[in-house]
């Protein structure tokens, strides 16, 4: 049995298959049809709902995709859906602003957009949201009718409206945590269990339980954010019979910063690591703007991204370049593994039966080190990389002392470009050095052509990124990327110029 608060009322659920998604549950079990299914794959945001967790005595909400969240992940949390957002006849400011600014046309994406805006409204606490915050909040909501302008206008102006938010829903009555955790049978108190016939789903609360469970059920699937695993259910028609939800294990969400390392808990979400990344690896943090959407970043975890072992990324290539290590733990084992040894083959990892990723330990950058992370995709928001390239360059007196790279989308696994690295070490920190080294890329990678890009483009653009890496290292203050362009007025002085550039180099590069 699990217990959660739905639109202000605590409810219990037991007799459901583990792979029941929140969206499916709301629409078919609770007849809450305000939340829409647009894609079933977490890409359109029509199913966005608010998920609340209690922090320092107060419920704090974030928007998530209901279609790729499993019901078990709701245990102990509060959920708000579009159906309950208006307080009687008074609309929530996000709703009223969307009406007044003509933000809806067909209306099908609108409930999801309202929920994203409501989360933004709640989180800015009366302040005017910045343009970046608005785009960030809406990054996971597709609208096919409006072209977004009126929606952005609604977001800019919703603070003008009186907040009549339904307090009972936003801050539901205290439920003693003991009450949540002690309900159910003795067996269930050990682990939360959502059971139907042979199918089982557990919500584990600590690592001891997790170790026991994985030892007993090595075939159980672990889920933290579910932003990828849920696709097996909604897109690939698979059933997941054994599911272990680890998102509630506090010890897997810790972030520890020491003099030389930062250690991220495996189940820390992107949203939870964002601040630390901004402080210690701003370049990595900037990548998050292009990684999934706000909804995905609210649920998705660093450990999940690594364990999922996508050949693309987005974080593994960066972690490879940074020289991260993974803490892998099971009931009887404990080990640290350099991340570049973790990925064995397409979707194959070094994770042993019963093992889980406890933490990711990342060396801190030294004064003479710079991290550069580039992502290439068709669209800026919420798209999967065609190529992801990361570089950690160590330089002294204009000479490249060391380089570590990580590439995604270039091979069956995310990996470093060893020939490129060798070609750079000892060379002057210059555009020419990088352009020459880029010629080694075909020796490191034989990429595939697929729906996102051709092999030729992947090599070509990776070369372009290496050149850009050099230019950025030489002119760090200049606008050098499309995603850094936020103003229609842009002067030539704002953008990269080639310090050492010449047309001869251009020829060499494009040859």
């Amino acid at each position, binding site marked *: 049995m699990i217990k959660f608060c739905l639109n202000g009322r605590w409810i219990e659920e037991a007799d459901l298959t583990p792979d029941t998604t929140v969206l499916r549950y709301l629409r078919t079990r609770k007849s809450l049809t305000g939340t829409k299914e647009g894609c079933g*794959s977490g890409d359109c945001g029509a199913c966005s709902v608010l998920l609340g967790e209690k922090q320092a005595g107060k419920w704090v909400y974030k928007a998530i995709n209901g279609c790729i969240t499993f019901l078990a992940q709701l245990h102990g949390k509060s959920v708000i859906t579009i159906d309950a957002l208006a307080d009687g006849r008074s*609309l929530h400011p996000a709703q009223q602003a969307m009406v007044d600014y003509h933000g*809806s046309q067909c209306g099908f994406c609108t409930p999801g957009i309202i929920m994203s805006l409501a989360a933004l409204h709640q989180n800015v606490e009366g302040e005017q949201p910045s343009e970046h915050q608005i785009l960030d909040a809406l*990054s996971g909501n597709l609208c*096919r*009718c409006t072209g977004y302008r009126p929606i952005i206008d609604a977001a800019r102006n919703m603070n003008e409206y009186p907040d009549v938010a339904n307090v009972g829903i936003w801050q539901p009555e205290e439920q003693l945590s003991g009450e949540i955790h002690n309900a159910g049978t003795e067996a269930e108190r050990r682990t939360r269990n959502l059971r139907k016939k042979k199918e089982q789903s557990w919500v584990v609360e600590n690592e001891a339980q997790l170790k026991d469970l994985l030892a007993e059920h090595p075939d159980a699937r672990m889920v933290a954010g579910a932003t990828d695993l849920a696709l097996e259910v909604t897109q690939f028609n698979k059933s997941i019979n054994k599911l272990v939800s680890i998102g509630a294990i506090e010890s897997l969400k810790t972030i520890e910063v020491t003099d030389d390392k930062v250690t991220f808990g495996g189940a820390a979400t992107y949203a939870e690591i964002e601040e630390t990344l901004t402080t210690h690896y701003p370049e990595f943090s900037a990548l998050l703007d292009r990684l999934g959407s706000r909804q995905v970043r609210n649920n998705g975890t660093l450990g999940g991204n690594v364990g999922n072992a996508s050949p693309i990324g987005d974080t593994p290539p960066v972690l490879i370049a940074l020289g991260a290590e993974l803490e892998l733990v099971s009931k009887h084992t404990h080990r640290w593994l350099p991340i570049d040894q973790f990925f064995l083959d397409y979707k194959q990892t070094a994770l042993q039966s019963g093992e889980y990723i406890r933490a990711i330990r990342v060396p801190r950058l030294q004064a003479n080190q710079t991290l550069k992370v580039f992502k290439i995709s068709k669209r800026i928001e919420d798209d999967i990389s065609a190529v992801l390239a990361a570089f950690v360059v160590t330089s002294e007196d204009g000479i490249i002392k060391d380089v570590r790279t990580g590439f995604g989308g270039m091979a069956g696994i995310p990996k470093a470009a060893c020939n490129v690295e060798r070609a750079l070490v000892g060379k002057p920190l210059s555009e020419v050095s990088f352009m020459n080294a880029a010629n080694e890329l075909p020796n490191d990678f034989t990429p595939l052509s697929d729906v996102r*890009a051709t092999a030729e483009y992947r090599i070509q653009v990776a070369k372009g990124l290496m050149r850009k890496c050099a230019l950025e290292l030489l002119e760090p203050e200049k606008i050098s990327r499309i995603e850094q362009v936020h103003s229609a007025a842009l002067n030539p002085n704002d953008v990269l110029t080639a310090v050492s550039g010449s047309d001869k180099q251009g020829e060499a590069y494009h040859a």
Partner: protein
Amino acid sequence: MRKLIDTNTNELPMRERPSKGKTGQSMKHESAEKHVTGKAVYVDDMPEYPNQLHVVVGGSKYAHAKIKLMNLSAVRSAPGVEAVITVKDVPGHTDIGPVFPGDPVLVSDECEFIGQPIFAVAAQSFEQAKKAAALAEIEYDVLEPVLTVEKALKDKFFVRPTHQHKRGDSAKALENAAHRIQGEQYVKGQEHFYLEGQVSSVVPTEDGGMEVFTSSQHPTEVQKLVAEVLGVSINKVQVDVRRMGGGFGGKETQAAPLACIAAILANKTGKPVKYRMSRQDDMEMTGKRHDFYNTYDVGVDEQGIIQGAEIMVAGKCGNSPDLSDAIVDRAMFHSDNAYYLNNATVTGHRCKTHTVSATAYRGFGGPQGMMVAELMMDDIARHMGEDPLTIRKRNLYGIKYDHIKTDDGQIDERNQTHYGQTVEHNLLPELIEELENTSDYWKRREEIKVFNAQSPFMKKGLALTPVKFGISFTVQFLNQAGALVHIYTDGSIHLSHGGTEMGQGLFLKVAQIVAEEFQVDLDTVQVSSTRTDKVPNTSPTAASSGTDLNGMAARDACLRIKDGLFKFATEHYQVEEDKVRLESNHLVVTNAAGEEQWVPFADFVQQAYMGRVPLSSTGFYKTPKIHYDRETGKGRPFYYYANGAAVSEVIVDTLTGEYKVLRTDILHDVGRSLNPSIDIGQIEGAFVQGMGWLTTEELVWNNQGKLLSNGPATYKIPAVGDAPIDFRVKLLEDRPNGEATVYRSKAVGEPPFMLGISVWSALRDAVSSIADYRFSPPMNTPATPECVLNAVMATERAKEAQWAQDAATADSVNA
């Protein structure tokens, strides 16, 4: 006697206040509050019956194959399955092609695209149906597929015969022209990606018919096809469409198969059946915008003015005709866009491929046709060393030049299209002039040149492209509409018409028209779902015609009711007919002494009811003036043209091919706007959708004919950050439609879609700057970052070749 209705006197309308919500006002979408609260009901949201069944269809694994053996026993015995049907279970017609045959409701023998429906499963839950459908065992004899336009053109493999427009002698004009330029382009299709996927829900009736709830732009066609597949008369089937979560043309013909399959299963099981496609099925099994391969051969004079052109447009129609005949026709009609082609031959091919049948999509072939005109303009400009805007302006319809004479020596009027329609009320020359001023085109052009000269990697581009889009269905009989208006005894009004609401605000606009006719508040008018038993034999809500047709039909119904009401009023109040009028929610009667008596509308309606005056009427409208002769390829297919123009500025990263739209200025002509906010919403939304078509939205098929971009993870429509950073949209003011449309408004659904071409043209402009605007980069669409980087590299190669040539020339001069 009790009063007919007790109205709350506090809410009685005040005569001092004009009625609210008449046309011309920016009223809110009629469903806005329901949208934002989640209370707006879409088909999938309707309460389900306890015995409701859910459908999943099994489709072909091959692009072209014969079914050798089909074993569905595992499907039938899967948990929850209540019925499995193949074509043998269809009681009536098995072909549901909308215009021409070619679309089997379920394939019997030969499969013609991957995903083509072969059998359908109805189960107690969607998940059960989905799992069951995967258990089918089908053996195929695999045949060679035709997957490309190129191959179809070579084999003359067409779904419909080739058609041609001819005016003058293009071959001679090309031969004699001062400059002759040729070019080609491949313009890929587009997935509609309506947020609400295809869905139909049906309930069997006691008369052996069906009640159908569908997300369709064409209820009448759904009604007819459901009746046909069931083998019952049309009056046994009622279709109801309250609203769609987006349509864009994708629900014109493509909704019907779902309703038909659900109806066959409901008929078989006697239970209500819902068929809602998963997004992946929707993307693989339903039609999209046509790919087009276009070529041009153009001759221009020393000023870049077109003397003659030969244009070919070849649409990738997929496996069946569907609407392709009319779509390729429209591409041909728009291959001139806004420009006078002079001596012209325009040829349109309808290529057959073993891919899902391409279908209607906002613009209906028009955008693909316009692309070749705009390609040509840019290419002429680079060839002549002129700014593309200069060349565009010189070639506009309605521009007269002293040096261009007709055969009999007169100055050429330059206002007749290659299909013989005279371009009347031509607003584009002045509209473009206004836009180039308000957008600072020429100042920014110079600034961009300076920027590009100083910025080696980031390049800016700028382009102004116009739109001239023909309004009317090119199939004449579709240009008709009906409506039904009731007034109840409390003065409230009920409105039905044949148009469907897909978000475009049609229900609102037509309600505003009715409110205007009766001079009552907009909230007096209740719009209901579109139902085939209220208004019969309707045309699809398509071709931007929704308001033009249904607004006029509703107005006609109002006029008929008003006619009766005014006759009654003159008798009742003993005045002449010109002494009664409706104003501010009242009937106003002026007596012989010139004194006005104000009677609240509801009271007047009650008087009329007691006087036994009909308070309900149908209305009808057909578009005048239009005709087209397919034999000669001449006529007036369009009642009028809608115009607009956009200036887009982009920035391109030449190291990666990535780009961003910095600023877009739009000036668009909607005649006298019925609702400015709704119109601006259509313009902005259409522009962004058009931009998406030409930039990030890439349909990728593998060499077996399988669609790889079959979900939003791989098919990228514009997201919130893709709209222009600086986006300025204006309606052209004080320009009522030159034709007598409803309140002199103009259609707005499709025309602004093509304003997105300005982004593509600006991207080419940015890339062209690399070679000092002397080379016209090849840039097929969508112009993804990969495509743009390829254009960059091609331009750099051209620049090097140019340098080499210049150097050689210099050498030889020096020698």
